[in-house]
């Protein structure tokens, strides 16, 4: 007999009789009904969950932090459609991995992704690559709901693939290789249940966001403040409802003479969580002449953070720039982000 199936069956059968009693009621109490009439924008979710630490280790050039919370619903994105993923009765937790550069502490959205396998005493328990995701309190991470076999020590192996994003400045030459690490995760249902679970009855559905969580050991993914971006900020615009900041660099070390750099940093409103995995087109005119018209390249740089950029053959100081969103961020969304950042606006700066 399949143990997971048995537990699932018992959970469903017993749900009404046992409501309010420990893990069997997880499903009903931990997924309040979605807000009705959600705005097409960032909104405050029905609840916020606390988070536990599952482990941390270095994997090649990367640091990896593993955290968990209650299993929860999220939305995957293909194109401009967000598709809801429901909690399964057998799901034990939502497992999250954050990947960062130990030198700069910058969280790295690696679109090459990572693989996670969970084993217990050599037996496979779960094997799937988690989705790249954004959440209001966790920022950018990789996550999915996982079904474990109850309390115990699990070996969680994380492989972070080499980055395919362009790496500039001090990042050039780094993160090209995959790194792998295994951590022991001592899972206890009772510890999970001690995590906070706060309903937000008064503000749920309002435009806004809950705050990013401050974690001791894991950096949070935040794009730099606009004022901290290097070069000249050409402008800031709002889409639906991501924030687009275009900046122009003329003397970065990675540029040759006669070159400038266009950087478009796209981040969530309120929390400045970088939004990776988009397709953007850019156009640059200098002195009335078109000097660039092409796709912008996903790039990381220690001071600009994750952004979409292009080297442009001009040393003009006041270019006029157009940006078209061709595809919105193909990252999965936690509640409160699933209706935002799905449009394909155009801007000029």
């Amino acid at each position, binding site marked *: 007999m399949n143990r997971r199936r048995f537990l699932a069956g018992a959970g469903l059968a017993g749900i009404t009789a046992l409501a309010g009693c420990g893990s069997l009621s997880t499903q009903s109490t931990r997924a309040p009904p979605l807000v009705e009439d959600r705005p097409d924008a960032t909104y405050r979710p029905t609840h916020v969950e606390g988070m536990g630490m599952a482990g941390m280790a270095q994997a090649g050039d990367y640091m990896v932090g593993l955290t968990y919370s209650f299993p929860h619903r999220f939305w995957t994105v293909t194109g401009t459609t967000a598709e809801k993923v429901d909690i399964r009765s057998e799901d034990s937790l939502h497992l999250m991995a954050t990947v960062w550069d130990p030198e700069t502490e910058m969280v790295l959205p690696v679109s090459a*992704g990572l693989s996670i396998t969970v084993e217990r005493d050599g037996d496979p328990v779960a094997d799937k690559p988690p989705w790249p995701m954004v959440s209001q309190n966790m920022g950018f991470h990789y996550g999915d709901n996982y079904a474990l076999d109850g309390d115990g020590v699990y070996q969680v192996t994380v492989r972070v693939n080499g980055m395919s994003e362009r790496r500039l400045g001090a990042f050039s030459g780094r993160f090209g290789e995959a790194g792998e690490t295994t951590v022991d995760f001592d899972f206890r249902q009772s510890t999970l249940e001690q995590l906070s679970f706060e309903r937000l009855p008064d503000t749920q559905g309002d435009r806004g966001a809950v705050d990013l969580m401050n974690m001791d050991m894991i950096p949070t993914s935040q794009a730099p403040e606009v004022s901290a971006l290097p070069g000249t900020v050409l402008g800031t615009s709002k889409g639906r409802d991501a924030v687009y900041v275009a900046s122009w660099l003329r003397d970065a070390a990675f540029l040759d003479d006669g070159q400038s750099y266009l950087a478009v940093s796209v981040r969530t409103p309120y929390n400045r969580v970088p939004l990776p995995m988009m397709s953007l087109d850019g156009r640059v005119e200098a002195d009335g002449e078109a000097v660039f018209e092409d796709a912008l390249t996903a790039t990381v740089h220690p001071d600009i953070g994750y952004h979409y950029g292009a080297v442009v053959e001009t040393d003009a100081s006041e270019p006029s720039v157009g940006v078209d969103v*061709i595809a919105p961020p193909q990252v999965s969304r936690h509640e409160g982000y699933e209706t935002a950042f799905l449009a394909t606006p155009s801007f000029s700066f």
Partner: protein
Amino acid sequence: MTGRGISRREFAKSAVAIGGTAALAACLDRGSASVPEGTDDPSTLPERQHAWNDALATDDAGNPRMPRHHVLLLLDYAGDGTPIDAHRERVETALRDLERAYEWSTEGLLFTLGYGPAYFERFGSGPAGVDLPEPEALAPFEDPAFDTPDALLHLASDDERVVLEAEEALKGTRETANDREMTASFDGILTESDRRTGFIGAGLPADNQDVEGVPDSEPVPEESPLFMGFKSGFKGNQATEDRVTVASGPFADGTTQHLSKIRLQLQQWYEQDSRDQRVSKMFCPAHAAEDRVEGVGENLGTDSGMDECPEDAVESGRRNGVVGHSQKMVSAREDDSPRILRRDFDSTDGGQAGLHFLSLQGSIADFVATREAMNGTDVAENSAVGQRVNNGILQYMNVERRGNYLVPPRSLRSLPPASPSK
């Protein structure tokens, strides 16, 4: 509770995976219909070992249909150095015995025997006129182990008794095959270093879905020939046998073979992705938007309709945020034809859902180029599509092992020299 006990029927279905004389005995008990006999005249059989298409059954649309049951034996030559003639003769006799015993067809037995780089190293050179490289990792995100046996035997039939019996007959544990006497075997000549099995065809994946990698909700459709829920191997999406055949040199009429062992993980595929997402990722987003794929895709006829998907995968990925597996593969075509002939099938080896991806091509370079197209690295680097997320079906599979082989022409199939004089 949907507990699935091991019924007699269930057991017979997994007999090929279990293998051995006990599994065969259980199978023989069960079967009744007779298996068509083969030929006493080997010259009536094609010179190409891989000339299966004429012998295969076809489906309703007219696509060649793969045999339902498969056994792969990775074999090592027992002797040191180069093979001796006595061994060649015994291997050839055993294979001719099989051809006498079973019709060269889906109801009978189809097989190939190929040789890896390790085998040709015994001669101090590669096979004459054919580039047969050692296998290598073919994607930045994979880390496969490499198969290095001397030989690879592929047995295929619609009848599980046949693959099991032929295997035992070759191993020398059984004196007859289809009631005809075996006059020789591989015993003491070619020894097994690994055994892999699988199946393809409506019903089999659904019946065998109680494995790691497929969620407990039993999502695999009954009609599906493969675990992922879609039909594959349309005539229009395959290279012809002519195209994958070595054209000249002593190994003319042979072909190169690549075998990878792929682990599938389908929980997200079935429980998180929607039907539209699955169609987008397997075929292309336009197929999903236009509802062009019904059920497992029988309605597609004899090709997957790639003319109706945007051809430029990078541009399409930039706009749609997702790119289809089949769609990406089109860029690897040559003269508008795929460069590889896929003869892959599903597997439950080790209790894990998997796929033995076996393909034939004129040269291993054709496979490498095809796999590069599948990697979609260009799409990932230049668009919202991730390296595995929304990038065809890469998120749901992991290549665990790779191996390369040369399948010589029939006349050279038994322990050939590296430079045969023809």
